[in-house]
C-alpha cells in the first residue's frame, strides 16, 4: 500500500528543540518548518497560483466548512478534488470545519453526535458529524486532513466543559479514523486539545498517541489567551508528541510566534494574518509591520524592504503603494505577495540556520531586529530560556 506520508528529520538544533525535515506528501515534498497560507474558499485571496509558486509556497490551506457549503461536495467530486478544481498541484491541507462553526456561528450547538449549525447562506440547519467532516475532506482530497474536534474557546473558565471536550475530541478522532476512505492518500491529524490546563493537555496528547496517525496538530490556541499561557501549552504539547512525526500548531502566523514555536519543536503553522493585514494596507518587515496608508509614506521612494526579493519590492515604491492602497484592489495582490514572501523567507531562514546549526544565533539576531531597544516581551525571554537561548 502507498504511504500517505514520509517524514524525515534532516537536521536538529543542538541547543533548542528546533528541527528541519522533509515531509513527503502525495502531491509535494514540503520542507519544514513551514508556514501555510490560508485559502479559505479555494483561493489565496487576490493571489495567482503562479505567484504562490514563485514565492515558494509549498502547501496551502483550504477550509472544509466553506468549501462544503460552496461549491459543495458533489461538485468537488466531479472536479476530482480541490487540487484539480483550483489548479494547484502542490500540497493541500484542510481543516475539519469545527473551528469555523464555533467562531463564526454563535448559534452552533455541540453534542456527542456533532455540531449543529445554521447555514449562513440559506439559514437551513445542518449537523456536522466527524463522519460528515471526513466525507467532505475526502471529496476535497487534501494531502493532510483534520479530525473534527470539540472546540471550546481557550479563554473559557468552565473546566468541566473543557474536560468533556478533551475526551470527546478523542472519541471523535476514532470516528474520523474509521470513516476515512483514503488512508493511503490522505493523512488525518488528530488535534491535541485541553485548553490551558496542563493535565488536560497531557491527557489529550496521551489519548491521541494510542492511535495510528502520521502527524499531530496542537489546537485550541491563538484564540486570545495570554502569550504566557500560549507558549507553555505549545511547549507542553510539543514535548508529549513523538519526534519522528510532524507537529502543527494551528492559527499561528506572527513572525515572533513562529520563531519561538520553532524553537519549541513545532513544524507547521497557518494563519490568515499575512494576507488579511495586506488587505488592510499593512506590509511585514523584519522590524515589524508598517501601515502604508500612513501619510509619512507619501513621498517615500524606497521599496517596502530593501533586501526583499519579492516582485512588489522590485517594482514599486512605498509612495506608489501609499497612493493605491485601499482604493485599487491590485494593492491587495501586491501586498499579499510581499507579505507571503516575507513569511516564506522567514521560514527558509529558520530552516537554513537549523541546517547550519546556527539557529540560536538566528533567533537572537531576529529578536534584536524586531526589538532594537531590547525591550523583549517577557514571554519570549521565558520561552526561549527553556530551550537554552538567552536574550541579552
Amino acid at each position: 500500500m502507498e504511504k500517505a506520508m514520509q517524514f524525515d528529520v534532516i537536521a536538529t538544533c543542538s541547543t533548542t528543540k528546533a528541527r528541519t525535515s522533509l515531509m513527503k506528501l502525495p502531491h509535494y515534498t514540503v520542507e519544514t518548518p513551514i508556514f501555510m497560507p490560508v485559502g479559505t474558499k479555494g483561493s489565496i485571496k487576490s493571489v495567482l497560483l503562479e505567484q504562490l509558486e514563485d514565492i515558494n509556497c509549498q502547501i496551502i490551506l483550504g477550509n472544509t466548512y466553506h468549501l462544503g457549503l460552496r461549491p459543495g461536495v458533489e461538485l468537488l467530486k466531479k472536479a476530482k478534488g480541490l487540487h484539480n478544481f483550483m489548479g494547484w498541484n502542490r500540497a493541500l491541507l484542510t481543516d475539519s470545519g469545527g473551528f469555523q462553526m464555533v467562531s463564526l456561528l454563535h448559534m452552533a450547538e455541540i453534542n456527542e453526535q456533532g455540531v449543529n449549525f445554521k447555514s449562513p447562506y440559506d439559514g437551513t440547519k445542518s449537523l456536522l458529524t466527524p463522519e460528515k467532516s471526513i466525507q467532505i475532506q475526502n471529496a476535497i482530497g487534501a494531502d493532510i486532513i483534520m479530525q473534527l474536534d470539540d472546540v471550546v474557546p481557550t479563554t473559557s473558565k468552565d473546566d468541566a466543559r473543557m474536560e468533556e471536550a478533551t475526551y470527546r475530541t478523542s472519541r471523535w478522532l476514532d470516528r474520523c479514523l474509521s470513516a476515512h476512505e483514503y488512508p493511503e492518500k490522505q493523512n488525518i491529524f488528530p488535534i491535541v486539545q485541553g485548553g490551558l490546563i496542563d493535565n488536560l493537555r497531557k491527557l489529550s496528547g496521551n489519548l491521541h498517541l494510542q492511535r495510528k496517525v502520521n502527524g499531530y496538530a496542537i489546537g485550541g490556541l491563538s484564540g486570545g489567551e495570554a502569550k504566557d499561557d500560549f507558549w507553555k501549552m505549545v511547549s507542553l504539547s510539543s514535548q508529549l508528541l513523538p519526534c519522528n512525526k510532524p507537529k502543527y500548531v494551528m492559527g499561528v502566523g506572527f513572525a515572533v510566534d513562529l520563531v519561538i514555536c520553532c524553537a519549541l519543536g513545532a513544524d507547521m503553522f497557518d494563519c490568515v494574518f499575512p494576507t488579511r493585514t495586506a488587505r488592510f494596507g499593512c506590509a511585514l518587515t523584519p522590524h515589524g509591520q508598517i501601515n502604508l496608508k500612513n501619510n509619512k509614506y507619501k513621498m517615500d521612494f524606497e521599496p517596502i524592504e530593501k533586501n526583499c526579493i519579492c516582485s512588489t519590492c522590485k517594482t514599486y515604491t512605498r509612495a506608489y503603494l501609499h497612493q493605491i492602497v485601499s482604493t485599487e484592489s491590485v494593492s491587495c495582490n501586491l501586498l499579499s505577495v510581499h507579505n507571503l514572501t516575507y513569511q516564506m523567507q522567514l521560514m527558509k531562514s529558520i530552516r537554513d540556520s537549523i541546517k547550519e546549526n546556527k539557529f540560536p544565533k538566528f533567533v537572537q539576531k531576529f529578536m534584536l531586529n524586531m526589538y532594537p531597544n531590547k525591550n523583549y516581551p517577557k514571554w519570549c525571554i521565558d520561552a526561549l530560556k527553556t530551550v537554552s537561548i538567552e536574550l541579552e
Partner: protein
Amino acid sequence: HGLNKFVGLENYLSCCSTIDSVLNTPRGKNQKDKVSLKTKSGNILIDYEKYMDIIEVFKPNMYVTLSISDTDWDSSYSLIEKSVNISNRLFMSCLERHHKSEVLKGSGVIAPIQGGYNIQERIRSATFLSEYNDLLGFLFDGFFTDGTVVEDIPGNLILPIVNKTMECLPKDKMKIIFGAWTLDTIIDLINSGMDIFDSSLPFFTTERNSALIFNYELKYKNDIIIMDSHCCTTDQNNVDKSNSFEICLMDTCYFEDFNPINESCSCLACRKHTRAYIHHLLMSNELLGSLLLTIHNLHYFHQFFKDIREVLLKNNQ
C-alpha cells in the same frame, strides 16, 4: 523619475489625459479658461499652467492638452461652441509651454478635437488643430461625459461625425478615441482611420463578471475590414441578446462547466482554470475571480487587435 517608473511600467508607453473614460464625470463648473476636473477628493479647477506643471513631472510618452470636453449628445450648440473655443485657446497655451519645456522634449502632444455631435463644430475644431505640424496625433474627444453608457451609443451616431472630421486631418498623424465602444463600432472606427483605443470595454466586461468570448472572422474587402462574429456559448437561453460577445460567469449554468473560458485562448486564466472555478470565485466574492477575468479580457482584447493588424498588414503589402 516620471509616471512610467512610478507605476512600474518603465518599458511601456504612457499617454496622459484628463478624463477617466470608465467613470461618469458630469459637467463641473468651468471658469474662464479653467477646467473643472472630478477627482477622488472632489472637484478641482485647473488652468493650463498647473496642468503643464503636472505633465512636466509625469513626463509621459504622449499627452492630451488640457481642454473642455464635457459635451455629449444632449449638449446645446452654445456649450459645444464654447468648448471648441476654450479648448483651442488652451491647446495654444499648452503647446507654447511645451516648446519651452526641456523635460518634455521626448513627449508627444495629442490635440483634442471637440465639437460634440455637431459636424460643423467638429470641422472647425479639426481644421484649427490640423494647422499645427508639430503634433503626434489627435484625440476624438467630447463624445460623452458618462463613460458607463458609451456601449449604448449607437455606432451610426458617431461614425458620420468621425468620417467628416477625418477628412480635415493629416493622414500621417495618429488618431485616438477613448471609451467602451462595442466591438462592431471599433471595427467601423478602424475602417474610418482610427489607430488607438483604450481598455474600457474589457474593464466593463470584467465589472459585470463577464468574459469576452466570441468567434470572429476578419475579412478584407474593398479596402475595409469586415467582421463576422457569432456567439459561441452553448447555452443560448443565458445569453444577453443585446450582447453576444460575452458570457456572464456568475450564471449558474457554469457551475459544473469544467472547460476553460475559451478553448482556443492562450491566456493564463484559460490555460490554468475552468469556468466552474471562476464561477465559484465570483459567487464567493473572491478577488481572484475578477483578477482572472481581467487577465482573460485584456488578453482577448489584445488578441483581437493583433488579428486586426495582421489582416491589415497582409492586405496592404
